[in-house]
């Protein structure tokens, strides 16, 4: 099963909101059964970044890490959400 990671600076507030949004989207698209979602703060997540099909981040990520990272801030502002969902979809199917 593919794995997805949601990260933010503290691992508690914005990633919780983003996790809810991503779950909602994946459920709507019937993709939720194909992915295991995890949540972490940026420091804890760094060493395990290769394990994930995608990472949605609301914080600054290290340079060596950028490949699978999707900017999650649009899911907080409501501006540009469809692009984020599309990127997640592209990493899964």
């Amino acid at each position, binding site marked *: 099963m593919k794995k997805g990671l949601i990260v933010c600076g503290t691992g508690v*507030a914005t990633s919780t909101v983003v996790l809810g949004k991503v779950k909602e989207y994946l459920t709507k698209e019937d993709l939720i059964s194909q992915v295991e979602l995890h949540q972490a703060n940026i420091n804890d997540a760094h060493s395990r970044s290769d394990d994930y099909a995608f990472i949605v981040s*609301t914080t600054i990520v290290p340079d060596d890490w950028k490949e699978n990272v999707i900017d999650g801030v649009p899911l907080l*502002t*409501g*501006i540009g959400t469809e692009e984020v969902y599309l990127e997640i979809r592209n990493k899964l199917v």
Partner: protein
Amino acid sequence: MKDIFMMNLTVGTKEQALTAMCSMLINTGYVTADFMEEILKREQGFPTGLPVQPYGVAVPHVDSKHVIESQVVFAALKKPVVFQQMGNNQQNIDVSFIFMLAFRDPTEHLQHLQKLFLCLQDTAFMQQLNQIKNKSHLLQLINNIET
């Protein structure tokens, strides 16, 4: 949401705004004494400015171990101050409104957290933010948003 702190601030920098807001939480016993230092430090490394329309908003918060009891502080700034954008510290945001989030346990308060972010995404809500008269008016606006 049942309660919120509300402040009207005239400040020149984000540090002044954050200090005033943290002081309110510390003085009322909602957070630990090191909350202010943590907020200021975290804002440097992990900025919380959000480019919402028509006003920039910031949502400073820290690890819940610095929180004694959950509370949210809302500040309306007389003049905007510059924050860096969340996830992109090269980008400056003129912030007019700040929601400081002090949550004891974010999963327990998930509904409040989600509601606040839904508020920020709601253009009608955002347009009314600069006409807020008092705390009960603000709570009414927040609670009118459907989760």
